[in-house]
């Protein structure tokens, strides 16, 4: 197992390198760069920006060099100094920007994720055990509805309903008076209140998927002879349910957990834009739009790394969870 893990990590290195090249290439793809973007914004605001100004700015930022040179400088700094570059937009080192949004991003993602798993797995089991019951139809219908509504629209509608019903659209993650306030009970409650819409919007769709998979897997497993065997042994239905079908049905769900690692950070971007959540997704989206290339690049690279890592975790989980694959390693 250890050897396998090590081998996989070694294999991942060229992948990450390759991805970093592609990432950098992609960022460069759209015409224009940060400077032209900056100039455009400035001129909208009524400032005057001349070609000379732009050239000077490019030279300062090193954007006048060939792309490959920019890439190598970037990579060199990452590898040797752990320096991921500088965000033009924030006037801060890239890492500082990422750090600024990390806390709330994790909060939002983990809460919605926990919501998804905690809600979806029991419901999936329930729907499979009580297949075609009213409950099955109800939950399936609800989860489908959540999945079928585009996030951005659902977010806007919920926001508007919240406004018409409660007079507060619950924008952002905190009410204005708590944004810069130190943590307190009231602030936490305020956060919880503001989490309702994101959790519903982001959580519901993910839940739908999970319920589907869980239900399908459970149905497969419930009909397997080992359930009958267990029953013949005198096990209680509850124990059978959790020990045999549930355990087996969780396999694909647990093993795909690694895949959702990146979606922790990017999955909710569109919703976050609509709901004005101060989390990573929108920041990165703007970095991409504004050609804040080191920020965008680092972010993408980070995501790529997470994907690779997630795949690795998934594979290890898969191997670890499935005795067949696990013993294959033991055997060789």
């Amino acid at each position, binding site marked *: 197992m250890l050897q396998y893990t090590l081998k996989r990590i070694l*294999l*991942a290195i*060229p*992948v990450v390198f*390759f*991805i970093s090249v*592609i*990432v950098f290439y*992609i*960022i460069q*793809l*759209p*015409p224009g760069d940060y400077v032209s973007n900056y100039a455009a914004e400035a001129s909208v605001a009524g400032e005057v920006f001349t070609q000379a100004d732009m050239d000077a700015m490019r030279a300062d930022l090193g954007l006048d060099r060939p792309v490959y040179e920019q890439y190598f400088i970037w990579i060199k700094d990452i590898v040797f100094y752990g320096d991921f570059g500088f965000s033009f937009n924030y006037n801060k080192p890239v890492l500082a920007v990422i750090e600024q949004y990390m806390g709330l991003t994790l909060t939002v993602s983990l809460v919605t994720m926990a919501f998804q798993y905690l809600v979806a797995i029991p419901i999936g089991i329930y729907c499979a055990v009580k297949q075609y019951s009213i409950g099955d139809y109800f939950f*399936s*219908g609800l989860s*489908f*509805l959540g*999945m*079928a*509504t*585009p*996030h*951005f*629209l659902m977010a*806007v*509608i919920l926001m*508007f309903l919240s406004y018409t019903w409660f007079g507060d659209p619950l924008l952002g993650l905190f009410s204005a008076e708590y944004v810069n306030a130190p943590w307190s009970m009231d602030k936490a409650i305020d956060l919880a209140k503001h989490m309702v819409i994101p959790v519903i919007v982001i959580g519901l769709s993910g839940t739908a*998927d999970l319920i*589907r*998979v869980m239900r*399908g897997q459970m*149905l*497969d497993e419930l*009909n*397997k002879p080992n359930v009958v065997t267990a029953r013949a042994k005198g096990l209680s239905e509850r124990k059978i349910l959790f020990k045999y079908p549930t355990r087996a049905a969780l396999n*694909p769900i647990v*093993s795909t957990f690694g*895949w959702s690692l990146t979606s922790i950070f*990017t999955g909710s*971007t*569109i919703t976050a834009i*609509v709901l004005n959540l101060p989390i990573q997704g929108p920041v990165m*989206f703007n970095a*991409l*739009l504004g050609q804040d290339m080191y920020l*965008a690049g680092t972010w*993408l690279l980070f*995501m*790529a*790394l997470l*994907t*690779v890592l997630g*795949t690795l975790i998934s594979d290890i989980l*898969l191997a670890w969870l*499935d005795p*067949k*694959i696990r013993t294959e390693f033991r055997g060789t």
Partner: protein
Amino acid sequence: MRRFGKRQAAAAEPAMDKDANYSSQWRLIYVRFKKHKLARISLVVLALLYAGALFAQFLAPYGLENYDSKYVNAPPMKLRFVDAEGKFHIQPFVYGLKSGRDPETMRKVFTSDTEKKYSLQFFVKGEKYKFLGLVPSSTHLIGVKEPGRLFLLGTDALGRDLFSRILLGSQVSLSIPLVGVGISFVLGLIIGGASGYFGGWLDAVIQRVIEIIRSFPTLPLWMALSAAIPPRIPVVRMYFYIVIIFAFIEWTGLARVVRGKFISLKNEDYVVAAKIAGVSDTKIIVKHLLPGFISYLVVATTLAIPGMILAETAMSFLGLGIRSPATSWGVLLQEAQKIDNIALYPWKIIPLGTVILTVLTFNFLGDGLRDAADPYKR
């Protein structure tokens, strides 16, 4: 004399013993599927939706460029049978619209003009179009006589009939996800299968490729694409591009599942036996391995279709993809999501209903297929 017919018997057979009948798996699936009421209804709804898309130009009273500043943001009209004087009419009719503006808020206000009645008519001559893209025609299924207008679901900010736009938009929104899913299904099956079945270096390479593709950031790719695509590209082709890209990323998930299943199934005795018996690899895969997890694939692919419909709406939200006057449901939803539309002209959210309906029916269909394909179903 009443006899127990063989046809009925076929339906009941699997309920008895598992080893009963193996020869007609697909027939069994068909029979079981027929029993799934929701799936059957979904299939009918989907058939209607697709028929609607196919004949959209004929069914829609107006075209996509039927702007009218007089009827901007008009609410849905009521089809009436009883007029203002209480008289009943066999033929449904609509009243003419009088429009004005609220002097305070500048909001367009519409009132029914009970003086003017326009009966709903069938096979009305209207805007020219090409039936099924081939036959030029100007007949529309329903309509009212000029200068009357028929806005069953209201109008948008440019005074276009929303009902017509939904119908015409379905052509894009319904057709192309099929292509995307088809591509990803085939790719995922072939590549994932090969990876899992043959293993070794091929597996290693494919896994790496999948990893790279999965790590590929979609958002900037879309953005780069939209910047790189020339302006006068036919909208549908543009959408095709994006769907292909989408499928290109989507297949990897499927491939991984297929691979995993292959790995765990390929050492099953019956597979090994077949191998030793000299059965070709393709045949082993098709005959022995695929049936082992077909239900999962069916669920995954039917779930992927609505996923793509939704992806299209998300792209429209980000300002990528189809652009008005060409219309897709994504375009309509993107227009609807502006806060003033939700606050002032809520009927613009109606396309959401069709999106939900389609996604739901696809899901129910997939569900029915899954249950039908399940070899252990009692």
